[in-house]
């Protein structure tokens, strides 16, 4: 990982000046900022939008958010504040979900590029026929049941493909930052989109390999 996103330090509550852990709600004085609901996941959490984000950063943020916002902590601060805290924690969890997993994070980042892409980055860009056929066959094979050896082999295949896509995705997002022209940027974003589309299929396979609930 080359560039870690930096936490935007010192975002203060307009009412009391305390540092805010989530831009929606001040856990110090209870002021809330419903107009910020439309902020993207990164901004809400006070992070710079970036693909490279260390797991530790996200985990640390989650712990901090939970410790300060979890409704259980607001049990005795009155019905109104308890409710506000519940909504804040809910929004925090939702924002964390949008950036926690690299591919989810990639999707979230692409959504932020609307003005450059003007709708050209919607999902389901056509993927090569042979890729789709391969995916279909693998899904069918898994559905029919696997021998332990084959299952292990497939798991490492899926892991390798996802690792490779993740690093390609990372490269494309770095390119987005570096290129000069809008058309080059759009090109990088489109490549990122393709990575994400392929990754979706591999992630489905990963889910299928984990199996459904163990009943």
């Amino acid at each position, binding site marked *: 990982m080359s560039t870690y996103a930096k936490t935007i330090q010192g975002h203060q509550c307009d009412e009391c000046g305390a540092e805010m852990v989530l831009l929606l709600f001040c856990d110090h004085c209870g002021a809330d900022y419903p107009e910020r609901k439309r902020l993207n996941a990164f901004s809400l959490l006070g992070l710079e939008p970036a693909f490279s984000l260390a797991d530790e950063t996200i*985990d640390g943020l989650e712990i901090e958010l939970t*410790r300060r916002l979890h*409704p259980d902590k607001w049990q005795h601060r009155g019905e109104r504040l308890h409710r506000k805290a519940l909504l804040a924690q809910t929004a925090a*969890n939702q924002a964390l979900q949008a950036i926690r997993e690299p591919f989810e994070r990639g999707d979230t980042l692409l959504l932020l590029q609307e003005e450059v892409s003007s709708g050209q980055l919607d999902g389901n860009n056509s993927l090569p026929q042979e890729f789709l056929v391969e995916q279909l066959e693998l899904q069918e094979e898994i559905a029919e049941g696997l021998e332990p050896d084959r299952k292990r082999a497939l798991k490492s295949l899926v892991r390798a493909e996802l690792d490779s896509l993740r690093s390609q995705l990372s490269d494309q997002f770095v390119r987005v930052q570096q290129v000069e022209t809008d058309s080059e940027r759009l090109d990088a974003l489109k490549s990122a989109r393709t990575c994400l589309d392929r990754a979706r299929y591999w992630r489905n396979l990963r889910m299928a390999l984990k199996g459904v609930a*163990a*009943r």
Partner: protein
Amino acid sequence: MRIPLPVKGQTVDIVAGIDLGTTNTLVAQVVDGAPQIIADRAGRRITPSVVSIDQEHHPVVGDEARERALLNPTGTLWSVKRFLGRGMDDLAGDVRGLPYKVVPSKHGEQVAFRVHGKQYLPQEVSAMILVEAKKRAERALGGRLRRAVITVPAYFDDSQRQATRDAGRIAGIDVLRIINEPTAAALAYGLDQGRAATILVYDLGGGTFDVSVLKLTEGVFKVIATTGDTMLGGDDFDRQLVDLLLDDLDEAKKELLLSHSGCSTALRVAAETAKKSLSQEASARVQLRFETLGIQLDKTIDRESYEVAIRPLVERTLEAVNFVLDDADLDPEDVNDVVCVGGSTRTPLVRRLLEEHFGRPPHTSLNPDEVVALGAALQAHTLGSATGGEDGTVLLDVTPLSLGIETYGGGVTKLLWRNTPIPVQATEGFTTQVDNQTGVEIHVLQGEREMARDLRSLGHFKLSGIPPMPAGMPRVLVEFFIDANGILKVKAKEVTSAVEAGIEVKPTYGLTDGKVEEMILESIEHAEEDLEERLLADLKAEAGGLLRYSKSALAQRRANLDPALVGQVEAAVAGMEAALDLADKESLEAAMAVLNESTHPIATQMMNEVLKVTVTGRTVGDILDEEQKRS
């Protein structure tokens, strides 16, 4: 040590943790910083989750109910938790061998019990158990239990959690929080005191199996993955033992025994007793005599054959362990602590296989039956204290199953994936398939499969009042919201028309708020009368029930009883009648104690007549007595 003394006119407010278990229910509270099980005045720490309802529809709960199982097999309900929030389809073959009747209820698709011509919902019966546990705690501490944390298996789905919450409300308890049993167990072991750890909780109770992986980081407990089986537990070990006991009989005799409710109860009790002794001894001898059917059984089961019989069940639990580790992307060696919960983890085979699997012995120092209630008490204390848990451990839970709605063609769109941290909200847009469609039926589903028919239906929502528009024009936004208790609320609105249409909620397995209100009103427990008066009314009802039961037992057994015993029971009955006339607390309690004591030999005798389990020379009566003394 500080002992809280009740001041006259001012009652102590008990904030408790309640483990509403499949087999037993326990109540605990924090005293001087440490959680303790609340024992009743007789020193009993456990309330068996058994309810016995007599012909007059008077319920008796706990030990007394268990004693009546033989006299009143069709009216004595156990393992009620298995039926909470479930429908007939969920149960399929599992109602086989139950002496009581499970029927489809009049409310939605959930099941109900049919007892002496009247229907009881699992929520109502669970509420009876909660009321009994609550009364015991209140009597022992002279306070009032209004607020509690109730535990559920982590694998409990939305409708099962809702049903548990409703049971609490019907029992007049303000449920502070529904928490997961594994989380409670980890709290009880004080594992939240460390800085960081990965904990696997293996909970094999009477009726449910749960395995969860928890991650602790600086005072935040997060369930990262959870799975289990709501239809696997110690009861299944009993069933294996019943099969072993019946091994030598031909099919016709087996069928005869299992279809006779009194006999199947006796078999179950014998199996349970043999199972417990097999955790200590190398073998157990079971002798049963069913005179009415002309069948005799005398069988010695050694631990080895028992372990062969239950091994597939234990291996099924290890598959779930592997599944949950896989789901959390962990290997067995990543786990720092393994915690054992549930009475069935006393089984040596279970502990042995766990140790082999993880290469380290599991935590077993706390009583596996009590550990969940103790942890719940700690969390209740945190939530109920004046500071409102500002310094306590925070529990960050996840939703155990994916949630979505049915789409055109029987597919499903998932709005929330399993293991998503809660509270959480998710919104998804949908549209219509047909021109001028003014209503949309929204079907809420739960589970991991891809087709609606394979998933569990949680309820139907009807969004009506959409103005006529061409197909594809309306934008219906469906919002899922799961609160910190894991309870789901669904809203839907149509946005294109800027008309917010109302939705009608029809929970498939739960109760409408109106119905719960109604049941609360029905429950005398909720009436805000004076505590003393209420306790007296309860006591009178209980005494009346005991009197009826004793009289009928005496009438049935008189001929077979020692005349001296008959005299004693008759005297105790007369004493009870006199006490009921007097109707003051002390005389009622005294008379009940005497009557209970004097009828105990009758119950034991009845039990011994049909079954005799000899474990190194002890009879069932001896074992029951020992158990009572121990608890």
